[in-house]
């Protein structure tokens, strides 16, 4: 049963239709990228959910630390002038 565990994990991204970006939909195990794409088709597109598949090996993804969530994402909160609602303009001018 060990050999199953050594199949790496892949993250699956689907483009729902032309014009949209690929979106993460889940993950699966496969021995290589070609079988990962095949398996992704069987597992995640049984009802026409996508027109394009990306697979990315989970091991090569680097992510921000969830504990840094505050310090990492707080700064924009005090820069309210980055948002259009910060500015007072005449309402009838369609600005």
């Amino acid at each position, binding site marked *: 049963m060990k050999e199953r*565990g050594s199949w790496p994990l892949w993250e699956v991204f689907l483009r729902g239709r032309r014009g949209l970006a690929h979106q993460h939909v889940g993950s699966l195990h496969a*021995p290589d990228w070609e079988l990962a794409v095949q398996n992704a088709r069987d597992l995640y597109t049984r009802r026409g959910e996508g027109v394009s598949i990306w697979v990315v090996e989970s091991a090569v993804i680097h992510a921000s630390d969830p504990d840094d969530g505050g310090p990492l994402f707080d700064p924009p909160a005090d820069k309210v002038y980055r948002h259009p609602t910060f500015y007072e303009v005449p309402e009838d001018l369609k600005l």
Partner: protein
Amino acid sequence: MAGAAADPREAAFQASIDAERSVEPRDWMPERYRATLIRQIAQHAHSEIIGMQPEGNWITRAPSLRRKAILLAKVQDEAGHGLYLYSAAETLGVSRSELVEMLQTGRQKYSSIFNYPTLTWADVGTIGWLVDGAAITNQLALTKTSYGPYARAMVRICREESFHQRQGFELLAQLSRGTPAQRAMAQDAVDRWWWPSLMMFGPPDGSSPNSAQSMKWKIKRVSNDELRQRFVDMTVPQAQALGLTLPDPELNWNESSGHYDFGPIDWDEFAKVLNGDGPCNAERIRVRREADSGGAWVREAARAWAAKHSHPAAGDAA
């Protein structure tokens, strides 16, 4: 576990849950939250995988090409559900091979409903209607569970489930409008599956020891008894539309509660089947083990192929 309770991060975790923020894989979480989820998601995944067997038994005997195609698609969906859920469990730090091992050695359970046999073609329709119907009731509530990957798997699964229930209902409707023998076959199947379907929601709230903590962590949002009642209320009118009766003389509309009352459930039978003494427990595990060992050469060949080619996976330790 006393040490874990004293962890100051536990209060922050609960506050985050109370604020309806979902928990994601790399967040800190109490070990008991992690263990509860691994157990629940794994049990759910195993149920999807074992659940392929009772219906799968009828694929070669489906009475028409249309019914065979439908049944194949449904069973394939259940395999997919199992895989979504195994992936969700793996985000909690348990490996796929450990999960498969725990199913095949009986250390983790699956829903006791799948230990009943599928004796006639009408069982296929009844499973779709009642068993998938009960599963949907349970799974809809779980789309709001606090653990993100589990909730997302549930959303995907619920989208696929409604065809399962509808094809079952349609199959039974055809039988109950058919010959007297077909009608009797449909009624017999409903008689056998009704009570086990009610047991799918688990023990009554009063004797469900882990429920309170699961509700507090918002892993569980709706209690066993409330889900069971929802299912009964939804199903009785459907049975009437089918022209079939449900095997419970105490089943009655209660004007004052606005719900259907129903008779007592045989919890001794539930415990017996759950603990291995059901009609098909041994067969289900044996078939699963055979499928696993029978497929070993395919996994081996795929690995050998991948190793020989120029695009080895970065995560392949070899």
